[in-house]
């Protein structure tokens, strides 16, 4: 009995993904644990492992195919002794996957620890059948280009997929390739593959907005950029934001950090200011649970653990790896976890459960010299702190005299549907207290 290998749901919310790369070919024998393919979701590229062993009888979805629905048969595995020649990829298969909008309760079972998801013998009866998904044909978007444009591009090592055509119906013509050679396009470096098949054809809405008298280029949005755009728009449209700003002195926190780093040096751990702010926020959220919430329309979810999403800038966008239980973790644990997550985020190697979820967020633009800013809430969370730069400012000291202190401005954005101004203020005060009296967060 051949086993159908289906597009895995690599995260609770994943509905489709890109089959970025096949690491096996038809006829290869695979063992459980072998990496079959790389799957690209809106946030990360993940390896897809084999669960069963056998021989790859057929590959049904070509690599590079985008928007492959979860549950689509992407390959067929023949178990030992079967004649692989007789096993063809099925034309269509009702996916065994999950319903379109998973309820929260299903999350745990829908996201298995191993992403490999061989077809169960039959779908669980309780799972409504999603619309039958045709086996996605190997759809390579045809690049429309003139023969001369193709010739020049080939000679010069230019990837036409990254170019925008200026000819009739968006055809890529010689002038477009020459413009790319002159440095007009990001995809011109010979030998370096283009990250994404950028432009296929300009959409009508783009054309309507475009002022073609101004030199320009048009690029397709990456799936990450689309996700960012959708979620931030949703947040600003649905969640009425209130913004509360406090100034926080850092001198004692910096002094403690110096002392702790000296002590931690032998263990090879170095605390950043941000690690300490994550901890402070975690503590503050436990103290003020009114801000550790999600607004669910007719109900309010209040979390009793503080999982802090930390905004990390990565090429092409932003990702928010999570420090789970920031309140319960020690500073050194936070430092180690944050460093690891940030490094893997930049390589696109995070697992979905490492960046999806969280109960509140922190975004620090202090290292970029930003004095103060407001952040957009990361739904369904209700709280995000925007951290400005710590800078020496004239300050009225505890003794009433004017002195110099290291001060940063922190602005909290709160979903006003769920959080009242007074509760937000209590959170900001608690956060300020932990930062200004940092022993409180380690005590």
């Amino acid at each position, binding site marked *: 009995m051949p086993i159908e290998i289906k597009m895995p749901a690599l995260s609770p919310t994943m509905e489709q993904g890109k089959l970025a790369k096949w690491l096996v070919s038809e006829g290869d024998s695979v063992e459980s644990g072998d990496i079959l393919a790389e799957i690209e979701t809106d946030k990360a590229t993940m390896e897809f492992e084999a669960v069963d062993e056998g021989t790859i009888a057929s590959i049904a979805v070509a690599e590079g195919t985008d928007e492959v629905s979860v549950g689509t048969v992407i390959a067929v595995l023949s178990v030992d002794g079967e004649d692989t020649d007789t096993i063809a990829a099925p034309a269509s298969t009702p996916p065994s996957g999950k319903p379109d909008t998973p309820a929260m309760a299903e999350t745990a079972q829908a996201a298995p620890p191993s992403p490999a998801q061989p077809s169960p013998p039959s779908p669980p009866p309780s799972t409504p059948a999603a619309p039958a998904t045709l086996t996605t044909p190997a759809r390579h978007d045809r690049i429309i280009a*003139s*023969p*001369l*444009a193709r*010739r*020049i591009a080939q*000679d010069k090592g230019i990837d036409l997929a990254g170019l925008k055509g200026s*000819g*009739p*119906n968006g055809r890529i*013509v*010689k002038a477009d390739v020459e413009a790319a050679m002159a440095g007009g396009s990001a995809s011109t470096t010979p030998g370096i593959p283009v990250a994404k098949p950028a432009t296929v054809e300009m959409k*009508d809405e783009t*054309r*309507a907005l475009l002022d073609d008298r101004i030199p320009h280029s048009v690029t397709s949005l990456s799936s990450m950029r689309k996700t960012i755009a959708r979620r931030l728009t949703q947040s600003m449209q649905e969640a009425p934001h209130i913004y509360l700003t406090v100034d926080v002195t850092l001198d004692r926190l910096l002094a403690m950090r110096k002392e702790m780093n000296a002590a931690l040096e032998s263990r090879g751990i170095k605390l950043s200011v941000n690690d300490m702010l994550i901890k402070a926020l975690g503590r503050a959220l436990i103290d003020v649970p009114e801000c550790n919430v999600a607004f669910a329309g007719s109900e309010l979810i209040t979390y009793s653990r503080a999982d802090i999403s930390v905004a990390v800038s990565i090429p092409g966008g932003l990702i928010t790896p999570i420090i789970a239980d920031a309140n319960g973790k020690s500073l050194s644990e936070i430092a180690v976890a944050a460093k690891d997550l940030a490094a893997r985020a930049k390589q696109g190697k995070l697992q979905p459960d490492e960046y999806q979820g969280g109960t509140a967020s922190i975004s620090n633009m202090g290292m970029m010299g930003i004095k103060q800013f407001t952040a957009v809430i990361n739904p369904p969370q209700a709280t995000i702190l925007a951290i400005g730069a710590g800078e020496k400012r004239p300050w009225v000291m505890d003794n009433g005299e004017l002195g110099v202190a290291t001060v940063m401005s922190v602005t909290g954005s709160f979903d006003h549907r769920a959080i009242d101004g007074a509760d937000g203020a209590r959170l900001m005060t608690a956060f300020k207290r932990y930062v200004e009296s940092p022993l409180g967060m380690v005590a």
Partner: protein
Amino acid sequence: MSNSYDLIVLGSGPGGYVAAIRAAQLGLKTAIVERERLGGICLNWGCIPTKALLRSGEVMHQMRHAGDYGLAADNITADLEAIVKRSRGVADQLNMGVTGLMKKNKITVHMGTGKLTVPDKLSVTDEGGKTTELSAKHIILATGARARELPMKTAQADGQRIWTYRHAMTPPDMPTKLLVIGSGAIGIEFASFYNDIGVDVTVVEMMDRVVPVEDADVSTFLEKALKKQGIEIRTSAQLEEIKSSAKGVAVKIKDKAGKVSDETYSHVIVAIGIVPNIEGIGLEQVGIEQDERSHIKADGFGRTNVPGIWAIGDCTAGPWLAHKASHEGVTAAEAIAKELGNPQVHPHALDRRNIPGCTYCHPQVASVGLTEAAAKDAGYEVKAGTFPFIGNGKAIALGEPEGFVKTVFDAKTGELLGAHMVGAEVTEMIQGFVVGKTLETTEAELMQTIFPHPTISESMHESVLSAYGRAIHI
């Protein structure tokens, strides 16, 4: 107000009337202003009636060579009046056709002389002196051009002995000894026609070769062919003096060596180029810029420096060809529709490298793109191929073995830079290369194309193969 339009086109030649039709197709309320006859020079006094005349010349030429085909024809004579009558009939038929097209497309025709008063207004004065004010969101100037005259006061075209193309098309009497000044397309066509119907023809050209805009190989070939037909060709020659009298036209021609010869001709055709029709149309009133040769300055879509005013065709920079004007007309109409909010149109700017040129002498000349010399001047590393008609079965069967096809490629990219043809039917074949150039084909697609046998067009294929050392029949 009924005299208010989305678009008014001034001039109804092949640029203007095509622009008006395209605009009407795109739903614009369109009017066209014409002072003389719908269809302009092309249809009434240019391209079309000359082709009718040349056809008569060609038939006569064939009849004279009837013996070559095993036929006999005696007492072949040309009835000039009947030839001209046929030519006028063709022009009249097409003029009616344009009238019908205007009606069909609901384009309002205002007969009269139009003049811009302010950038969005045009006054039209009809034959009776009555003036009508029109206004429009956009105005296209398509006023065309006319023959350039000789600088000498004694040699202004009067239609008696000194003619422009227009007189030459409706000659009052049969010339006996004709001088054609200028060997561009117009000069060579009339020289060919009058020679075919038995007139003694001489062509003088200032440059060192005939049809100087064409590839040098074409010029050399054509000069030889025309001389063989009995036309006297004097290149690198200058007109020193020209005097018209009742007896004829006395001309002093200085040759390359500086030697001056005196000749007398019964008639002279002046074909030394064109001047744009830019006078009295209000350019100064609205401040429209012109280039150093007084052509109206316009961008690739036809925009002048004044918003809302466009210019196309012969009143703008060259080449001064009807099909270039028509193409500009369509482009301008689409660009205007886009400016008026139509999101469906996507005009592309004129690409001058892909405008073909045709001369309908015998043998015909047709070309597109860069000559070999121009390509080298532009810095290309060139691969050129030539295939003579003598290697083509159809040409031999037709009794037309004189001619060749030359193709010029960029050696680095395989881009077809230019194609140059001389011989029978080449004006009907050049579009193959024009399509190829417009699609940016390389030698590979042209080599891969199957040309029908037996046709003269196989020479096009062979020429491409020859550029890469692969010609079969030579």
